[in-house]
């Protein structure tokens, strides 16, 4: 059976995502903290986005920088710094691409009977900031579909006319 992903808005300012993995915490932590591995899952194929580069200096105070988009086209960057790194149980980072006061993401890895419960918290500075929070690169994909919809609508109306 597929492991379930749950998403809950635990407070006005906080989003909580959970998922269980059938593996020890150190392996899930490894996949999260080594850029070569991280690159393979952070942007799933269904997102239709290209993660052009991914630099991660995983230690307290270290920085990360993700660049999305194809070479030579418009790119989107996501960056910040790690504020907590405790292998293999906890990692937290800031999200600074939107300027000061961005959300802080905390991920905990809790191992029990060879399985790992992963809990991700995203704490925003205000309710309004979380309301407006997009799903990053996934939103960009949504926009692409909207553009396609608009184009298809134009095409079908010209056929009707």
């Amino acid at each position: 059976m597929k492991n379930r992903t749950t998403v809950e808005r635990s407070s006005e300012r906080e989003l909580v995502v959970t998922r269980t993995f059938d593996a020890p915490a150190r392996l899930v932590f490894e996949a999260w903290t080594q850029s070569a591995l991280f690159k393979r899952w952070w942007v799933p194929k269904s997102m239709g986005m290209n993660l052009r580069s991914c630099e991660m200096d995983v230690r307290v105070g270290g920085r990360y920088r993700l660049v999305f988009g194809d070479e030579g086209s418009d790119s989107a960057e996501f960056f910040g710094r790690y504020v907590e790194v405790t292998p293999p149980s906890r990692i937290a980072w800031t999200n600074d691409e939107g300027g000061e006061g961005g959300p802080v993401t905390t991920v905990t890895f809790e191992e029990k009977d060879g399985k790992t419960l992963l809990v991700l918290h995203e704490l925003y500075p205000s309710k309004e900031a979380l309301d407006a929070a997009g799903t990053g690169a996934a939103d960009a994909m949504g926009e692409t579909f909207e553009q396609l919809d608009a184009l298809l609508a134009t095409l079908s109306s010209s056929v009707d006319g």
Partner: protein
Amino acid sequence: MVQYSQARFDTSFAALSDATRRGVLEQLGRADASITDLAEKFDMTLTGMKKHVGVLEQAGLVTTEKIGRVRTCKLGLRRLEEEAAWIERHRQLWDARFDALERVVDELKRKEKVDGRKKRK
């Protein structure tokens, strides 16, 4: 997501089980109204109407806003739908991401097993 919706549906159905409250929703579907307006229209005391509106508000079916001394009520259905859609959008992203993470973790697990066997030889 399932649990989240279930709890919401329960409170929504409980809120809809009362004829006055269904009437209030119908009324608010035509126009926003203050609690005083609604109490008059349904021939009720202010306290009684406040209770009904409170139940509808709890269920997310009505939202109220106090401006000065007047509390205005409006339909909250749209807000409820938006909230559910917002949660679902985030869930889809994380679900796709974690499916991919699972594949990477499974691969690490298999690799570790093979390496372990090699070491024992």
